[in-house]
């Protein structure tokens, strides 16, 4: 029995040891596969001898696997996708190739990309470790029919948070929620009103900023919305959330531009023409989501991997294809002049929304990620904020407690 097992073991080992030389393996999460299915044939045609395969895993699983691979120095693909929420902690750890080095010369491309996204891919040492492949400029989607029914002018509604809340009060009389979850508002304010030189949660010396005016204001606005009963207390990505969009019981949603694709394709396809997109309220500019491409140091085929990354990120062809195929908004600014941006979008009642997205993308301020951002994010957005909104904890106390927890963890 044992002998057979060992023999089986040996033969399996030999099977596993074959890999060809100019094969590029791309590790990512869906919907990159739909994107690659279209682009890989194009690329292989113009680059004879190169073959590209991909491995997809669910978003969280992909990052868990990537963490394991980076930790153990083996198993990662040649090109890996990193989500914006992880990029800060991944690129500073030394597991990726320095793309600013002469072999790659990424710095020369910097000008071509949306500023804030480009700087998110920079490590603390000023070198580029990850290249933005898609971004999520933040906008507010709103139901036109609901706005009309209360006679609201959206330009006026988004003037500031007071006018936004005022709009909510009018909607409430018609039993319509202003927004699915008030927490989104707090998150938007926290992420978008960062002062120059500050990080999201920490100042230059690494001291937490969470008791500063920015956070207090964010919490206050969200709490006002919650206390007046203007939000639906609906969790994102649940059936109730989708139902709110379908049935018109929720009037606005702050989100990345990519939500459009979801609304249109499956969340609420029957509501075409009833939607509009505008800037975020109170004149803020921010982003939701975005992905980066990087080359792990352990990659076998770095040179070809870099060529493929350049193709995916730095050619209008690939960037525009991403927008068309999977609704991934381009990070390459050169594409914004393309005719596709002038196209009216039927789902948004003919609005030329991509121009708005591009305008937002160029105005989002650059904020460098700092060590501890992930921890602070959990403690503030998913800890303190929900204590305030759902359990009625006092804002100052919640923020002070969170600050103490952050200081313990992040040194």
């Amino acid at each position, binding site marked *: 029995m044992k002998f057979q097992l060992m023999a089986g073991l040996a033969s399996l080992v030999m099977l*596993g040891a074959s890999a060809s030389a100019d094969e590029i393996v791309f590790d990512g999460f869906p*919907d990159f596969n739909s994107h690659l299915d279209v682009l890989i044939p194009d690329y292989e045609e113009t680059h004879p001898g190169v073959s590209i395969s991909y*491995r997809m895993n669910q*978003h969280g699983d992909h990052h868990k696997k990537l963490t394991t691979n980076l930790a*153990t120095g083996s*198993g990662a693909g040649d090109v890996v996708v990193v989500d914006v929420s992880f990029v800060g902690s991944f690129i500073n750890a030394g597991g990726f190739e320095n793309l600013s080095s002469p072999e790659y010369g990424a710095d020369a491309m910097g000008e071509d990309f949306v500023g804030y996204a480009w700087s998110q891919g920079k490590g603390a040492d000023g070198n580029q470790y990850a290249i933005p492949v898609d971004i999520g400029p933040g906008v507010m989607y709103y139901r036109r029919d609901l706005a009309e029914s209360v006679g609201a002018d959206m330009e006026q509604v988004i003037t500031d948070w007071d006018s936004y809340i005022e709009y909510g009060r009018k909607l409430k009389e018609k039993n319509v929620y202003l927004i699915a979850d008030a927490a989104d508002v707090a998150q938007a304010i926290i992420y978008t009103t960062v002062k120059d030189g500050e990080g999201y949660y920490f100042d230059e010396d690494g001291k937490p900023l969470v008791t500063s005016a920015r956070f207090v204001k964010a919490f206050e606005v969200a709490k006002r919305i919650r206390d007046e009963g203007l939000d639906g207390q609906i969790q994102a990505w649940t*059936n109730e959330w989708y139902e709110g969009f379908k049935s018109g019981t929720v009037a606005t949603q702050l989100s990345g531009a990519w939500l459009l694709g979801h609304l249109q394709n499956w969340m609420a396809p029957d509501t075409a023409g009833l939607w509009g997109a505008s800037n975020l309220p109170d004149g803020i500019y921010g982003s939701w989501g975005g992905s980066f491409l990087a080359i792990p140091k352990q990659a076998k085929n770095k040179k070809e991997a870099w060529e493929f990354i350049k193709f995916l990120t730095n050619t209008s062809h690939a960037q525009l294809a991403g927008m068309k195929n999977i609704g991934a908004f381009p990070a390459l600014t050169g594409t914004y002049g393309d005719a596709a941006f002038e196209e009216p979008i039927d789902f948004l009642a003919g609005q030329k929304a991509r121009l708005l997205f591009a305008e937002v993308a160029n105005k989002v301020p650059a904020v460098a990620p700092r060590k501890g951002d992930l921890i602070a994010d959990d403690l503030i957005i998913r800890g303190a904020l929900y204590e305030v909104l759902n359990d009625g904890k006092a804002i100052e106390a919640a923020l002070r407690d969170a600050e103490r927890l952050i200081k313990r963890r992040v040194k």
Partner: protein
Amino acid sequence: MTKLVRVLPRVSMQAFLLVSVCITIFPFVWVAMMGTHSRSEIYSSPPPFYFGTRLLENYEKLLEVMPFWTVLGNSLLVSVLGTIVTVLFCSMCAYGFFAYEFRGKNIVFGVMVASMMVPPVLTLIPFFLTVKFLGILDTHFALWFPSAANAMGIFLVRQYMVTSVSRDLLDAAKVDGASDFRIYWSVVLPLIKPVLATLAIITFIALWNNFLMPLIVISSPEKYVLTLALRSLQSVANTPWGAVMLGTFMSMVPLLIAFLFFSKQMMAGLTAGAVKG
């Protein structure tokens, strides 16, 4: 009246079982129903609790997004091989703990029980290192072999031996001159068939539904197992949920078949009657 007294417990028992079955079978039926709807239909509120019309469409989509039958074959291979070896190993070890007194027995048993208590989330990275060191990365072998003599299985079989194998019988067999292995194989194993079937059920399901190990061990798509393949499709983005639900449902069917098969073996022990009484 007396008839009522006799019938009532029976009726209420049936009613109770029926209600519990309705509660437990609910997800199975629902998953089956969701496999016949499109994504927008699944994600309406309340979700549809009836069969839809998109079964064929979902099936075609499923085959388009993953090699379903290959992947199912991989899962079968891992689960069947793993179950056979696990049942063999666990019953051997359990017999070792049950039939002998030896120095260090309590320590080994203690270590074994303690090894169940280590939270598995954390041992992922060192496990990966081990598998890599042994050169069995990206093999199915690495999915079922490491857990083939697991503490839970050994413990379960041992407990069954305690209740159903009498020591007099072992001693009698020894007096008859049977070798140790013969006693284990021809005397004890036939007596503990029900627990072997129980262990087979649990092992089969654990291997079938295992997800974390395949995630870090398997990298070639043609070696994916069902859990991994189905999960790798999921994202907030473009997931064909109807197809995924159909795949989920279809992946539960072999489990149910395996269950019915083994539970038949298990219940067979009832009519055979236990030795110890």
